[in-house]
């Protein structure tokens, strides 16, 4: 006949976190590793449920109830600090002699080895704890190396995007590309016309229907502008809802005006987006290369800007050509008292 101390010695080697309970639920023996977690208090003699709080099944508060949960996975933790979480399994001993419980750390192993300075000698040879710890460390190290690489790649991607000439949302040229083209045309003295187009009511689409709707509208706007222009014209998105169209070798005001009106008309057609209709419009200012005597890109774009704001002031959905009068108005508007100035659109 094997006695209690033999069983305890056997269990201690096989599962160093075992607990032997008597039939009143008091601890008779514990494994060396479990005792190591509370070096200052002798576990034998204490009531199991006073030492541990049962988290699942929660209703268990008595020894018979504990025994009834044999076979089920127990989730428990120490009642005092540190409240290390444990998993357990209880098996009743034959002849109403109490029960054996085997405990393990589960996922709390990472904190436990640190909190209690455990070593591999504290785990049984078949326990996968050491392998788990190895894996966590190995994977963390590998993940750290990957993260460093990702950060570097992300930096490279941002740098590449900054050097790119395409607006990723619409596929149109971006501001940088437009600057290059404008500078080249001005340097070569090629005649051209430049339209500055600003969407009206775009902000309200964004605000009421969301950014996905806004993005969809910008893509439709881009498509329409590409359709309404020739292959060697330039269409660029230079800001949130601001676009520039450059027409090479075109100076004909009538043609330009009809292109601008057609653009506005088509942009005003409601655009369906997931069950809603997005309604926008556009204002356009146009400047001809022959109108500007001092051909640098900055003043050129400023002239287009003035024409655009003249269009906005004329009410939305308008097209305005640049004229020298606008420069004078602009100068007047810079005077501190703006009594005669109309409110900005």
């Amino acid at each position, binding site marked *: 006949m094997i006695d209690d101390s033999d069983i305890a010695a056997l269990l201690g080697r096989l599962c160093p976190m075992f607990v032997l309970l008597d039939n009143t639920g008091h601890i008779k023996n514990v494994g060396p590793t479990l005792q190591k977690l509370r070096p200052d208090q002798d576990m034998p003699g204490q009531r199991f449920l006073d030492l541990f709080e049962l988290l699942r099944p929660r209703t268990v508060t008595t020894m018979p109830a504990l025994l009834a949960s044999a076979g089920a996975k127990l989730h428990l933790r120490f009642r005092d600090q540190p409240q290390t979480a444990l998993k357990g399994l209880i098996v009743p001993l034959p002849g109403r002699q109490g029960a054996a419980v085997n405990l393990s750390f589960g996922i709390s192993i990472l904190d436990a080895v*640190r909190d209690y300075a455990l070593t591999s000698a504290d785990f049984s040879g078949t326990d996968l704890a050491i392998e788990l710890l*190895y894996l966590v*460390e190995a994977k963390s*190290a*590998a993940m750290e190396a990957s993260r460093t*690489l990702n950060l570097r790649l992300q930096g490279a991607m941002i740098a590449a995007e900054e050097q790119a000439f395409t607006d990723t949302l619409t596929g149109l040229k971006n501001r940088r590309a437009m600057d290059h083209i404008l500078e080249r045309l001005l340097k070569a003295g090629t005649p051209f016309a430049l339209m500055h187009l600003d969407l009206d009511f775009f902000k309200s689409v964004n605000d009421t229907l969301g950014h996905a709707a806004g993005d969809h509208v910008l893509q439709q706007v881009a498509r329409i502008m590409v359709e309404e222009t020739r292959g060697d014209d330039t269409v660029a998105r230079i800001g949130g809802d601001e676009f520039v169209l450059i027409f090479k070798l075109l100076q004909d005001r009538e043609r330009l005006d009809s292109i601008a009106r057609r653009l506005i008309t088509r942009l005003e057609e409601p655009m369906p987006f997931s069950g809603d209709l997005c309604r926008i419009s556009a204002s356009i200012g146009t400047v001809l290369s022959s109108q500007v005597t001092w051909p640098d890109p900055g003043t050129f774009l400023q002239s287009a800007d003035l024409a655009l704001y003249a269009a906005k002031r004329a009410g939305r959905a308008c097209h305005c050509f640049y004229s020298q009068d606008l420069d004078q108005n602009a100068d007047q508007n810079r005077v501190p008292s703006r009594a005669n100035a109309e409110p900005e659109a």
Partner: protein
Amino acid sequence: MHGLINRAIQSFVCNTYGQSRWIRVTEAAHLGFVEFEAMLVYDDETSQRVLHELCAELGRPRGEILEDLGTYLVSNPNTEALRRLLRFGGVSYVEFLHSLDDLADRALLAVSDLHLPELELHEHKPAEFTLTCHPGLPGYANVMIGVLRAMADDYGALVMLHHNGSQEQTETISIKLIETAFAEGRRFELGARAV
């Protein structure tokens, strides 16, 4: 060759001989870059070129440099993570030696495209072993001698190591364990984290 291995060489050279010498090596080897990425894979030929230029730069034989690399990997605080992973192999130096049989598999478990050559430990008498390094990574045995020596220090064991040469690219190292508890050794806590 895996970026981790190239990166190990880079780290060793920079920390032992200084960054300027490493940059000279990368230029002589026509790398076109200075930093290896740990998580990318490079041509074997690239790594061989770097090693070749490194020998020229340092004026030392390849075997010696690789041995120092192995020692560096275990003993330098920069590569503490690696030392810790090796210490998971066992609580004693002998256990550690036996765990080398699983080293290639353990490496794969951590980084799925890191293929290290298989290692095989034979115990002839108590305290006398040979370690067979299978082909795949020329010079691996030299690195392993450095690793084994530094790990002996780590465990506080006293060993004699000898490179027995190679046969058909399979290299063997003989290991004689003089004393298992020669010195105190370094502490190893499961719960500590390498930084």
